[in-house]
Structure formats: structure tokens, C-alpha cells
């Protein structure tokens, strides 16, 4: 192709090529071959997708030795672009001195960006591999600490992934 914009062909098409027939035969062979290839469909309710550790599912709080790691610094709440997180701090006799008396994530607002996980200095909030979120009302979509807490064993894959990739 020259800069003049003139189309230069190696050679003009022969009548046989212009009749489309060789290309159509080629195409038919392709489509028929595709028919017998294995399918990748996961038939959802019976089979379920098992996400990789890099998957960003719903955010959860990490629970270690029966208490949450969270120190209620409020950074996640600050960074959340969708304003989905609400934290209320309180004092505790434990070593970390502060803990969230109330930690709520509104799952209707959450956009699964993972900023909360990135900003957290304690690695206390991480993205899990759960993606099935069903609610029947707005109120039900606000997850409190009872639904958010997950033990370190349950989140082992994700924590391992974060250790290696951050």
C-alpha cells in the first residue's frame, strides 16, 4: 500500500476466486469443525464457577484468633468511591486498642473495585471469592459484622495471593 492511497494487488482475482466458492467451502469446513469442538459452558445451578484467588468477590473482614483484625481507622470508608462502607470505632482492652463497634458495607452500593483492600494498613478487609449476592430489599443488602467476618482459614487463598502480589 503506497502513500498515494492506491490499492496495489499482487494479482487480480481469477474467475474461480470471484465465484466465492473456494472461500465458502473453507468457511463451511470451519463452521462444521466448530460444531464438534468441546463446549466450555458451565451449567450454573448444577455446576458452579470456582474463582481463582485473584478474583474480586464481595469484600469481607478478616477474623484472626476470634477477633477481627480491623482497628477502625476508617481509611476504607474514606477511599470507597461508592460510599458503601460505614465504620464506627470504639475502645477495646486488647493490644490493638481500637475496634469497630459497627462495620457495615452496603452491598447494593459496592462496586467491587477493591480499593478498601488496597488501602487497609492491617490487611483486615479483603475481597473474597463469593459472587452470589441476592437480596429481597434494600435493608437486607446492608451487611453488618455478622455477615462480613471470615476466618483466616477461609480466606487462606486470597491472603496468600496478596502476600505474593503486593
Amino acid at each position: 500500500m503506497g502513500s498515494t492511497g492506491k490499492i496495489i494487488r499482487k494479482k487480480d482475482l481469477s474467475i474461480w476466486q470471484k465465484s466465492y466458492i473456494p472461500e465458502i467451502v473453507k468457511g463451511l469446513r470451519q463452521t462444521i469443525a466448530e460444531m464438534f469442538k468441546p463446549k466450555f459452558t458451565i451449567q450454573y445451578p448444577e455446576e458452579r464457577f470456582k474463582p481463582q484467588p485473584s478474583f474480586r468477590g464481595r469484600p469481607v473482614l478478616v477474623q484472626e484468633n476470634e477477633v477481627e483484625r480491623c482497628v477502625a481507622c476508617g481509611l476504607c470508608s474514606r477511599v470507597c468511591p461508592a460510599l458503601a462502607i460505614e465504620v464506627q470505632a470504639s475502645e477495646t482492652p486488647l493490644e490493638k486498642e481500637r475496634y469497630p463497634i459497627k462495620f457495615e458495607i452496603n452491598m447494593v452500593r459496592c462496586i467491587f473495585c477493591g480499593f478498601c483492600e488496597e488501602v487497609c494498613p492491617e490487611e483486615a478487609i479483603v475481597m473474597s471469592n463469593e459472587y452470589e449476592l441476592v437480596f429481597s430489599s434494600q435493608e437486607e443488602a446492608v451487611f453488618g459484622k455478622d455477615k462480613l467476618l471470615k476466618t483466616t482459614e477461609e480466606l487462606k487463598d486470597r491472603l496468600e495471593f496478596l502476600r505474593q502480589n503486593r
Partner: protein
Amino acid sequence: MGSLLLISVIKFVAYVSIVLVTVIMLVYAERRVSAFIQNRLGPNRVGPWGLFQALVDVVKLLLKEDIVPKNAYKPVHDLAPIISIAVALSTFAVIPFGNTIELFGTQVKLMIADVNVGILYLLSITSLGVYGVTLAGWSSNNKYSLLGGLRSSAQLISYELSMGLSIIGVLMVCGTLRLDQIVLHQTTYLWGWLPAWNIFLQPVAFFTFFIAAFAETNRLPFDLPEAEPELVGGYHTEYTGLKFGLFFLAEYANMFTAGAVITTLFLGGWHLPYAEYLGLSPTMLSILQVLTFCVKLVLVELFFIVVRWTIPRFRYDQLMNIGWKVMLPLTLANVLVTGAVMLLIQ
């Protein structure tokens, strides 16, 4: 006389139910094969392997609300799908799907109407199908529908010509307009081994007829009347519920008929090569022949479906170019050559 009428009624009822069910199954087959070509699974939930999906869809269409646009011309808007479906169903009446059989002491021809101008009937009825589409496009009072209807009529008129002319070659070879006679003519053998199917005697006619059949049934690569990116839905944009269902059914019934006509005219109809040497009883033989017809029909339909996902849609000028500058001269040349060869042989 009474028994003749009874036989006709039985044949008619059986035929309508069989054709309707087959057409519905054709919709299922299309969806399933399309899915497989695209590495998907397709409908597989309703019934075994999703076989009842199409039936359930028909029920859904029946239950939907029928909306007529405010500016549409209602009488014609209502009439158009009826024309479409009636034409699509009546074409099948002259197709022989088996040899003459003897049932309870009477000779029964396995076709609905034994018309002595079978092919002419077929051609004239299929050209009536344009009215359904064009009237639907016009009466909807919608620019997309109108364009779809106009395109359809232009396309059908240009391709009907080459369709009719390619059949002339077959008629010259067989020397009859009766479809059952044409099939009988194809049951002989050339040089003692090759079945004298018209696909071997008239390859050019087969080729042109096949392409014209794609255009007649409005299927890809010739589905310009309903080209979605340009025309929304084409002539049936303004149709809902049962009336849309009728168009949908007519489309697949047309495809079914086109396959049956191709089988009858070119692929030897119900003829299974060398089956008469197997020494089967007449009943077994006729069952085998009907099955042969079905298998051939299914293969042609499968080819229709595979082609849909292989060839992209033609541009409108390309479509007209192929119709008038390629197909028409080809068919005319075919008629000329056939005549010359027949004269030489005599």
C-alpha cells in the same frame, strides 16, 4: 368416491400436524445447531435435551398481547401473516414423500394433491408469499418495515426468475410437470450404477436453484428483508404475539418446503439407491423410502443452518448483481446446453 374423500381428509390432517410439528422442531434444531457452531450449548432445559423448548415458545407467543400500531392499516395488518402462513403450508401439498402404496385394497399416493402441473402450482404459490411480506411492510406504516417489505419483493422477483428457469432444465430431462413422475424418473440408473438423480444430470440447475432457494426463504446470506443492523426487524418489526408467531412459523415452513422441493427435484425424492435389490416386502420398502425422504430433507435443512453461520450477508447491489448478471445467464445457458445435448442424443 367416499373412500377417496376419506383418504384425502386423513392425509390432510396427518400432513398438517406433521408439518407443523416438524417446523417447530426445525426452530429447535436451528437454535441448537447454531449454538453448537458458536461453541455454546443452546436450549437444553425444557424436556429431554431441551426438545420441548420450541413448543413452549409457541405457547408463549400465543399468550402474548397482540399490539397493532396506531397508524397501521388494521385489515391488511391482520391479513398479511395469514397470507404468509397459508402460502407456506399449501406449497407442501404437492410434494411426494413416498412411492404409491397399497393400503386396505386401495392405491394411496403419498402426497396430498396429485396435481398434473405440480411444479407450476409450486412456483405460483411460492410467488404469492411475497404478498404477505410486502403487505406486512406496507400496512405497518413504519419506514423500516416498508423498506424490508420492498427489499423482499425486489429480491423475490429477481430470484424467482432464475428459480423458474433452473427448473426448466429438470423439466426438459424428465418431460413431465408431475412431481411424482419426476421422482420416478430419478429412480432409474445411469450406466447401470449411478442413480439418475437430477443433481447428476443437471448440476448447474441444482446449484442455481439452491442459491435461489436461499433467497426465496429470506435466509442468510440473502436475509436483507430483515437485516437487523439496518432495518430493526424488517417487515415484522411492528408485529407481536400470535401474528409474529405466524410470520416466524411461515419462515421456517418455507425453509422446510424449500428443502423438500430440492430433495424432490434434485436429490431423488424418496429414492434410496439399490433398495429395490434388497428383497424387502412392499410395506417395508415404502417405510424405508419415506425414511429416506426424511433423512435427505434433514440433511438439506442442516446445510441451510450451517450456511447461515458461514457466509456474511450480501450488500444490496451485490445481491442484485448476482441475481441478474450471474444467476440468470447461468440458468439460460443451462437450458440451452440441455436442449442441445438432448437433441444430439436423439
